[in-house]
């Protein structure tokens, strides 16, 4: 178990890297505390897997250092890092039985037969694999195979971290939920650091103590799910986190006073360069529908109602203006093309300058 620190780390798969575009992972600094759960969240090709492979040693970073508990392991071989990793598709040793698969990391590390049996039985019990132990591993189903991959990570009690690279892709939804819960439980009990790579925000938010949102090889924001939801540091995070995504409305800058057309929103701020772009970010969850006369955030027309079960997602249009989405439980009483008033708690509006958060009004 160890604290993992990525220090000025960057990686490019192109050995002659010149421009920033050549980097799969742009220079970054991150510290992962021992025993917590983390999620790397971002669209495909944003560098999540590269970061994971650097930590496990499958990829050597072109710049920077990787520290485990302050010790430089940048050049240490994979086998010496004591890391467990689960890939997107199950990787099992076909020529071995389930028990031999689970025992393999311990056999490689020359544990005694007694210790191996004890650990394998314990992990098999934890993952409900006991009855399959003597079977040939290749005879199992895909999700059972993935459990074996995970089990091989769990048999080592002193493992530094478990890296999970979208491991739940092949597992059916019911099992997914169960497995995620199990992983959390293992983390709480054994205190093993876990890092989950995913592009599913629900998975990230429910699993992790802290979520790292990435795009284009850059860390956009790292924080608790609550911080990511309430205070996205940039429009990308606002857009990527939350369903439906955050609303962004353009703001006009009139000598230090920002105003938003159609809504009556205005805000005075100091030192606002006039050439910059400003926008107002509002979570659909915080917008409320009111009577027209009580509207504090303008009047709009309902152009779409999507019923998603208990909630409804209402798309509204300001007169000749932008569209805005809103999430509500009272969608049954609303009608298409109806004109309604909008209101918003003032402390929930966020102001972005060139796509970066500058004021949160809290």
């Amino acid at each position, binding site marked *: 178990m160890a604290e993992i620190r990525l220090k000025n780390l960057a990686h490019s798969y192109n050995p002659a890297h010149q421009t920033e575009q050549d980097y799969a992972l742009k220079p970054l600094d991150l510290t992962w505390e021992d025993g917590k759960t983390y999620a790397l969240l971002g669209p495909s090709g944003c560098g999540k897997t590269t970061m994971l492979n650097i930590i496990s040693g*499958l990829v050597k970073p072109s710049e920077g250092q990787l520290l485990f508990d302050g010790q430089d392991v940048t050049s240490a071989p*994979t*086998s010496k890092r*004591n890391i467990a990793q689960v*890939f997107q598709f199950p*990787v099992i*040793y*076909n020529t071995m039985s389930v028990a031999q698969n689970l025992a393999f990391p311990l056999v*490689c590390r020359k544990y005694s037969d007694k210790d191996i049996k004890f650990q394998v039985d314990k992990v098999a019990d934890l993952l409900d694999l006991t009855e399959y132990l003597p079977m040939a591993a290749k005879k199992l189903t895909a999700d059972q195979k993935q459990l074996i991959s995970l089990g*091989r990570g769990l048999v080592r009690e002193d493992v530094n971290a478990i890296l999970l690279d979208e491991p739940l892709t092949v597992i059916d939804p019911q099992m997914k939920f169960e497995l995620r819960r199990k992983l959390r439980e293992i983390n709480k009990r054994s205190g093993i650091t876990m890092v989950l790579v995913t592009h599913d925000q629900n998975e990230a938010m429910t699993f992790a103590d802290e979520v790292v949102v990435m795009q284009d090889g850059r860390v956009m924001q790292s924080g608790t799910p609550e911080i990511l939801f309430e205070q996205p540091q940039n429009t990308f995070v606002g857009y990527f986190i939350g369903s439906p995504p955050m609303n962004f409305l353009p703001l006009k800058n009139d000598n230090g006073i920002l105003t938003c057309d159609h809504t009556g929103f205005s805000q005075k701020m100091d030192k606002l360069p006039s050439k910059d772009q400003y926008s107002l970010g509002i979570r659909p969850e915080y917008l409320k529908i009111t009577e027209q006369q009580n509207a504090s955030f303008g009047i709009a027309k309902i152009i779409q109602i999507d019923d998603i079960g208990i909630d409804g997602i209402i798309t509204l249009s300001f007169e000749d203006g932008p569209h805005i989405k809103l999430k509500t439980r009272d969608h049954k009483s609303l009608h298409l093309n109806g004109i309604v008033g909008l209101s918003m708690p003032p402390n929930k509006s966020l102001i972005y300058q060139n796509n970066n958060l500058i004021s949160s009004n809290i």
Partner: protein
Amino acid sequence: MFRFYKILKHLCLLLWSAFVVFPFLWSLSTSFKDANAITGGATYIPWLEYAPSMQGWASLFTDNEQGINIAGPFVDSALVTILASLVSLILGTLAAYGLSRFEYRMGFIKNSDITFFFISQRIMPPIVLAIPFFLMLKQLDLLDTVAGLVLVYTALLMPIAVWVMIDFFNGIPKELDEMAMIDGCSPIEAFFRVVLPNSIPGLVVAGMFCVIFGWNDFFFAFTLTFTQTQLLPVAIVSLNSSVTPWWSLSAFALISIAPLVVIAFIVEKFMSKGSLSGAIR
């Protein structure tokens, strides 16, 4: 219509099998004939068309002057084929794994060029190699020896092993090696403990190719040996003299292909058990 197609298919297959099996049947019937039966026109059915004789088979197993020495060529052939195949398989598999998993660069030479270098050894017509091999073996004093032939055959068989195994290793996801390293293996341990056990089907195929090519080769066995060492194909052809003993020659030829037939049956059994398919995932 469907029935007609089925009958046609079976007729074609029957014709083809007759075509393939005929040389063997011909050899088999010839091996039981004596001089009279052989010169007496084409006959196929024993007892009816000709009187069977054991003289051909007997000559293979007699030790006197009339007998033919088959033990010597058999042992030489087996030694050369097995040793050359083993060396080719071991070196070829290691080379193929390296070429499949690591990136090499020597100036402008890359992995694909090295692979082509191996395979180009087989593209070249063997006659090109005859004189160089002859001179090299002469220098080393290895002409007409089993050791010399093992060296030459290794050079001929290794490209086959490399070729088959590269393809096989490319089919094994590299995540398997990576997982083994994460589980605590060094790269070489990952190869021996995880990749190799998963490669048995590929090794069987590569080994089979090596054995078939090695066992059947006539050209180098003929050009690089004289009297001390003799391989089966050369020994059989050398029976061809002014009066060819067709009965002995046929029996000899049938015996010399027997090991390959046995191997074919073993591999076929192995394949039908499903051990050769679906090794990954």
